[in-house]
Every structure is written in C-alpha cells, then in structure tokens.
C-alpha cells in the first residue's frame, strides 16, 4: 500500500505551543518522523534595545524575557551589573532576593507542571496549580505592586522593603504548599494514564543533554547533577541547606518529577531564609548615575527554566556597549527536533510541554 507522509504545522497558533512557537512536523500516520522549529514570532530585539537604555532602565525589560519568572530575570540582571561595578548588596536585600527568587521558582514550576499536564488532556490539573500560584502573585503584588512584571530588584538591592503583613502571609503560604503539593501528587502523579503517557516518552540521554547544553530541571532529569546554585554559588546561596533532585532516565515523567521536588526544596530554602532574615536597609550605597567601568562581565544564575546568563560589555558610558542574554529556554528548545523523532503526535506535545519553555525567552 502506498502511504504518504504529511506535514503538519503545529503553531504559531495552536492550543499547546505555549506561545507563538511553530513546529513543522512530518507525520507518518500518527508518528512524527522529524520536525523543524521555527522561532522568532516574539522577537523584540531586547539585546539591541539594551544598547540604547541606561543600566537601571533595562531592568523592566528583563521582566519580559521569561514572563513567568520576572523576579529571577531581574535578579540575574542586577547581579551582573553589581558584579561589573563591584557593588555591595545589604544583607537583608540578599535574603529577600533569595526568598523572592525561590517563590518565583515555585510559581514558574506551578505553571510548567500545570500546563504540561493540561497538554496531556487533564484540564482540571491546570487550575489547581494556578490557584496556588495566585497566592504567590498576591505576595509579590503586596511587595512591589505588580503581578506579572515586577521590576522589583534594583542595582544594589531592592526597590521596596517588604510590608509588615508579608512574613505572616508567607508562613501561611509555605504551610499551605505542603497540602497543595500532596494533593497534586494525588491527582496526577499516581494516575495510571499519566504514567503511561509520560514514562519512557521523549527520553533525553545524559550524553544528549550535555551535548545540547541543557540546564535547569531538564538536565537534572537526565542524570546530570548540575545546579548553578551549587556549582557556582551566587548571592548567598552557599549559606542554605537544600538538595538538588536528580533523576536518571530523562523522560518526560522525570522532568515533571524534578520540578515537583524542586518546589519542595524551594520551600525549604525559603524557610531557612526567613529564619535568618536580618534587619537593615534593602538598598546599598549606589552612585546616582550608574556608570560601570569599562570592561565586561558574564554572570549566570539558576532560573526556573534553566541557567540564565547575562553578558555585559561596558565602555564606561551609562549605557551598555553590548548586552547579551543567554536564554535557557532558547538553548533547551534546541533538543526538541532531535527527541520528537519516532513519537506520536500526542507525545510531541507532551515532550514540548515537558521542556517547559517560555516564548518570551526563546525569542528574546
């Protein structure tokens, strides 16, 4: 019998491309024989924009990279500039930064996990994580007045101190998180259909993960124990006690599990940070005009999606000469074309979702 391969455009408008991502897949019946990623639908030229903005002015733009993890993006950027200028950050600000970055990690993983399970067809499983995430957003908006784009970190510290009612609310949230995660495990993790759909699907081997330069939960699911917080501790992460979850098989289930466990670990870190949170100012001594000395710096942090790096070249003027963003989603997405081969359409969607990309970051 003569059969014909068909080419299907997944995206840029499709319910599960997580934004404006286009994947052209070739199908032999239900099985994908290959695919090509087409990016750039959300390319805003942030790197070029940065060249005509002053250093503090670029902070709000970093919000728009991975818009599910604006706090972490802020943190990566301001730490890079601080490193370039040698600015000291007050202790209290350092602790608060950790608290916010970890809260942001939980919020981002909530969306990552929720949308992943939704792409497997369980619609209810996306509502519960969003309800939990809402509580984090409440904490954020209480502190900095924004729910999505926070613009909270400043070069040398933070824009505001936390309000009085923040810490009790945060404690409440951390206690709530335990039941929330348990419930989610009850709903999703043990479900036989879910297991059948995810176990052994879209395997990224250790070698493949390393060669494709994956980072974040994706690489840790493939048996590589690499977490920037441990490997190259930034800020005050060396003071905290936490585990880095590593799974061996590198399938979609492991990528899901890494995120679930990471949320628990983040809760641990936040609890330690609250315990040690010192009093004091939240903004250090920073010159009025941010004018880093000529030179260059590269700095990267562990973002929820992977390793976010900023490369800044300064010529001594108040505007960066060149600013490059190493976007984890962009690099992580590179492996997709390779790993979808031989999987069904339904799995292609699951694999894409399990990589947990955000198009704002992929396209930069």
């Amino acid at each position, binding site marked *: 019998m003569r059969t014909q391969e068909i080419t299907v455009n997944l995206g840029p408008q499709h319910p599960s491309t997580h934004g404006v991502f286009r994947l052209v897949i070739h199908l032999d019946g239900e099985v994908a024989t290959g695919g090509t990623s087409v990016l750039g639908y959300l390319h805003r030229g942030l790197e070029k924009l940065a060249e005509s903005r002053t250093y503090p002015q670029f902070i709000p733009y970093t919000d728009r990279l991975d818009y599910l993890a604006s706090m972490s993006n802020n943190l990566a950027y301001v730490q890079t500039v601080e490193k370039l200028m040698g600015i000291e950050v007050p202790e209290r600000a350092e602790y608060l930064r950790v608290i916010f970055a970890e809260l942001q990690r939980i919020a981002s993983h909530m969306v990552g996990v929720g949308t992943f399970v939704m792409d497997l067809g369980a619609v209810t499983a996306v509502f519960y994580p969003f309800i939990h995430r809402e509580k984090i957003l409440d904490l954020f908006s209480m502190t900095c007045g924004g729910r999505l784009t926070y613009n909270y970190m400043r070069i040398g510290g933070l824009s505001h101190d936390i309000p009085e009612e923040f810490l009790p609310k945060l404690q409440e949230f951390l206690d709530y998180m335990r039941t929330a995660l348990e419930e989610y495990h*009850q709903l999703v993790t*043990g479900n036989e259909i879910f297991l059948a759909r995810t176990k052994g699907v879209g395997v990224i081997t250790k070698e493949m993960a390393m060669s494709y330069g994956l980072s974040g939960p994706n690489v840790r699911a493939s048996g590589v124990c690499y977490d920037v917080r441990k490997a190259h501790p930034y800020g005050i992460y060396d003071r905290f006690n936490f585990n880095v979850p590593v799974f061996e098989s590198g399938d979609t289930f492991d990528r899901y599990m890494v995120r679930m466990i990471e949320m628990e670990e983040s809760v641990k870190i936040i609890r330690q940070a609250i315990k040690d949170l010192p009093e004091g100012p939240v903004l250090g001594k920073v010159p009025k005009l941010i004018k880093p000395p000529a030179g260059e710096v590269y700095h990267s942090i562990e973002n929820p999606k992977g390793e976010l790096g900023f490369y800044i070249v300064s010529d001594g003027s108040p505007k960066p000469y060149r600013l490059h963003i190493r976007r984890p989603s962009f690099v992580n997405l590179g492996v997709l074309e390779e790993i979808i081969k031989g999987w069904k359409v339904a799995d292609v969607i699951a694999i894409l979702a399990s990589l947990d990309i955000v198009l704002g970051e992929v396209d930069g």
Partner: protein
Amino acid sequence: MYGSGVVKGLALTLKKFFSKKITEQYPEERPFIDHRWRGSLQLDKDACICCNMCVNACPNGVITLESGKDENNKRFLTRYEVNFERCLVCGLCVEACPKQCLKFTREYELATYFRDDVKLGLYHNPKLSAPSSTYAQKTEQKKEG
C-alpha cells in the same frame, strides 16, 4: 494495585466538587488592590518642579513634560502627558521624582474604547503652553462638546 491512582484522583476531584469556590465575582465584588499597586499615574502639579527626572528615567520615553519660566525665573508646569500606550508601568519615574509628586494610583480598570483615550493627560494648561499635541486638543474638544 493497578487503578488505585485513578480512583485517588477521582476522590480528590469529588472532594473539590463540594469544597468552597474561590472565584471573585468581579464587577460586583471588587478585588483587593494592594497599596503598592502600580496602576494609573497621578501628578501633584503644584509640587512639580519640572526637573525632568521622570522624563529621563523612563525607559520608553513616554513622558512629555513642558514647562515655562515665570518672572522670578522659577519653573512652572504647562503640560504633562504620559503616553500610556507604551508605558511599561515599571515605576522608575515615580522612584525618580525628588518631590514625590508623581504617584501611582490604585486604579486598575484602564481599558478604554478609543486608542487616544489610553494616553494620560495629567496636566495641561492651554493658555500657557506652546501649541499642544493633537491629543490634548482632542480632549479639550471632548470636554467642551
């Protein structure tokens, strides 16, 4: 046992089916807006010293500030306009203001029917200012008519 995960899931959703709903009934129930909420902008025009700090702080250049000088060589404001269309609502202008005369309001219903209405004319004194922008004229006309 095989199938227990499925049953557990069903048990959870049934529990949720009977638990309290969390939806805010928006137009009737107003949401709680935090005190630090970055909503619309508000200008205390008498306190403004026309130092242009906010204009310089804005990453997108959405603020237009026009001023004149009186007989004592003191600056006074003639026009202050924020093009909210391209505003990032980052708050750098509010932070930059040395007199704290630019503030965020807790207003959050900022959608408008017409594109021109998105622009925020915070202050405009037509008698004092040089030829005003098209936008300013339009709002004037609207108010008169």
